[in-house]
């Protein structure tokens, strides 16, 4: 039994934590939070590119470091912990992974090396309104060469150079790649619950687009991308949950009420123990997802769903109870609790909300049992 990360991967994680604690301090996060014009921290983005993280899981032939998905998982955990205000998840978990699994050699050669250097910021544009984007309901259309329609919200849509767009095509839907610097693209920033990550509406008017993967296979491909991203997002969520638990524990030791540390009250202890249990369940499920992702195992769809559900639960619990533990101070702008509360919600609804994933999980369980 070796159900753990290797010493090298743990070392990478340690390095990442050290690097991000300096480069993605709360001052950096808050600079993006407080400035509506600022979509992300460009300096941090550049530094991350220089560390080679953007290409961590990109093969060396396409300019990456050629490490695997497990390395991406440990980086994801630290990115989540630090709340790094950069388009990392959009670019790495969604866009790069999509090109890796479905792109042609030409598409990989055109995009991945630039992405690894930090010159390509990717985003995924699927949502058009409330609910899960399905082929039957899409208004955005791909005509074989260009795409027309509006996508909202698109995480990192206002700073991205490229978008992966889900559009109606032939009898179903296709995923297409759009260079956002081209004609017929309008990006407009919108306000969201989590201003530390930028969001936009993307409007396409006959914008040139090229197909990714098979025509009409967009929904299935999007699901494959989501399954992979779900594992990586789960690690971000675990990093964030752990940060909340650490913060709440620290506060409970230092804050006195009724002439005692509030952490000596069982009401607080049990709250924090519940957070710990939820986090352990999330971590264990995420580890399994990491194993399935890195070994291309047929268990991935079920493992990814479990990892996602457990991580959403853990982060929601940890972020709300962190505020509660801090009492009135927790509700202020100055204390960082709300930053995690915001991020927890973003990560829970992007790539499909937990209730959708629960139904997916049960269907996948039925399929596994039938097999």
């Amino acid at each position, binding site marked *: 039994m070796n159900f753990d990360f290797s010493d090298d991967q743990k070392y990478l994680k340690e390095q990442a934590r050290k690097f991000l604690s300096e480069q993605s301090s709360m001052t950096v996060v808050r600079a993006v939070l407080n400035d509506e014009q600022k979509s992300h921290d460009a300096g941090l983005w550049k530094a991350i590119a220089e560390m080679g993280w953007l290409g961590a899981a990109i093969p060396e032939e396409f300019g990456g470091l050629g490490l695997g998905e497990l390395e991406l998982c440990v980086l994801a955990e630290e990115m989540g912990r630090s709340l790094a205000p950069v388009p990392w998840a959009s670019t790495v978990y969604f866009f790069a992974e999509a090109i890796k699994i479905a792109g042609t050699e030409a598409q990989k050669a055109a995009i991945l090396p630039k992405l690894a250097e930090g010159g390509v910021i990717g985003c995924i544009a699927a949502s058009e309104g409330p609910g899960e984007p399905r082929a039957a309901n899409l208004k955005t259309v791909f005509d074989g060469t260009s795409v027309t329609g509006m996508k909202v919200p698109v995480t990192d849509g206002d700073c991205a150079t490229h978008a992966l767009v889900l559009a109606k095509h032939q009898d179903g839907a296709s995923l297409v790649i759009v260079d956002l610097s081209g004609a017929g693209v309008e990006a407009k920033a919108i306000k969201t619950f989590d201003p530390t990550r930028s969001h936009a509406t993307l409007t396409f008017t006959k914008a040139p687009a090229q197909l990714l993967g098979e025509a009409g296979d967009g929904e299935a491909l999007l699901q494959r991308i989501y399954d992979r991203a779900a594992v990586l997002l789960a690690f971000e969520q675990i990093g964030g949950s752990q940060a909340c638990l650490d913060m709440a524990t620290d506060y409970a030791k230092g804050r006195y009420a009724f002439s005692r540390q509030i952490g000596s009250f*069982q009401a*607080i202890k049990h709250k924090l123990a519940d957070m710990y249990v939820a986090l352990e369940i999330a971590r264990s*499920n995420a580890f399994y997802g990491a194993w399935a992702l890195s070994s291309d195992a047929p268990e991935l769809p079920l493992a990814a769903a479990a990892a996602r559900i457990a991580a959403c639960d853990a982060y929601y619990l940890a972020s709300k109870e962190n505020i509660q533990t801090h009492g009135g101070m927790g509700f202020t702008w100055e204390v960082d609790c709300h930053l995690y509360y915001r991020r927890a919600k973003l990560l829970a609804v992007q790539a499909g909300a937990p209730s959708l994933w629960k139904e997916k999980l049960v269907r996948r369980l039925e399929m596994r049992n039938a097999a």
Partner: protein
Amino acid sequence: MDFNDTPEEAAFRQRAQAFLAAHVQPRAGQTESLQKRLSDKEYMLAAKAYQKAKAENGFAGITWPKEQGGQGLAPIFSVIFGQEEGKFDAPAGPFTIGLGMCVPTVIAFATDAQKERHVGPALRGEEIWCQLFSEPSAGSDVAGLKTKAVRDGDDWVINGQKVWTSGAHYSDWGIVLVRTNADKAKHKGLSMFFIDMKSPGIEVRPIHQMSGGSNFNEVYFTDVRVPNSQMLGGEGNGWSVALVTLMNERLAVGGSPGPDYKEIFEWAKTMPGQDGGTLAEDQSFRQKVADWFVRAEGYKLAKFRTMTALSKGQTPGPESSIGKIITANQLQDITHNAMEAMDHFGIITDAAHAPSEGVFQQSHMWAAGLRIAGGTDEILKNIIAERILGLPGDVRVDKDVAFKDLPSGR
């Protein structure tokens, strides 16, 4: 990352599988289980024979030192044997507490002659041990116990009452924690003895549980004499000895203590749902199945992480405290949902009428006890908060006060 045994572990597992296949039957349904089929007496004989076979084949005392008759192996091998044994209907229950907690305490504190006398018979299943700690007024706060021992020549004389003692009625020996000095503070006036359960003055009475069954006992001590030589760890050191006993609590290796997501989901395919289909098709039910799956798998995988640590020779800490919190609450929740899903029919416990032989109803009763036994949810959460998260202990009003002066309430 992989889920493979090391070559050494794989060889051990194979040996364990061969032994188990030769000596016990694979698990079957509720009613066919060995314990249900056999009389208490027959079951005990089967259990003793099984333990003897384990000892003869090198599967008893897996982690104990070789000089004590153990196998001198790392804890991972004990976990592996437990995993394999769990797949069988093995009559191992009567030895769990004795070999898991009591005898290791004897090994740690008894004289060589005493170890020579007691360890072998326990390992070979010839003698069974029980643990006498809890009392009517000392459960979660076990150091608040009142059973007292008074010195009389070379003996001590014990008076008092113990409770929730598993297996006291069939045990030959027990370890008993008693108060030897009520003038000292609570934790400082305790001492530990091992005692012959057939001693005059010991009376064992079964507890009638809310589930209707009787799996535990009350044990009354009336002027019970025990030689001073059977004190473990010295006078006044009972609490430290008890901590050693409790640290030996077996690493949880088993699966769920009752029906889990698999069982309820399979069963739901045969139950009517709210919209004309089956229960397994109901959206609200399916959402719950997903939650149960995530918790059950999460706990299973957490144990894999513990095994990984063990496999690398690390000692797992209090992390395993999460196990019972998850499994006991999940069992209560699943069985609650199963019963409510049956509507009025859910109240039937009669095995002839109740679906799945009434397993959901039985387990729903059992789950309430499981949340209390061996550390309540609340105590386990305190352990997580204090020993893992490092939160301060509760304010102690009993620390520097003589035990006899403490308020005791009910």
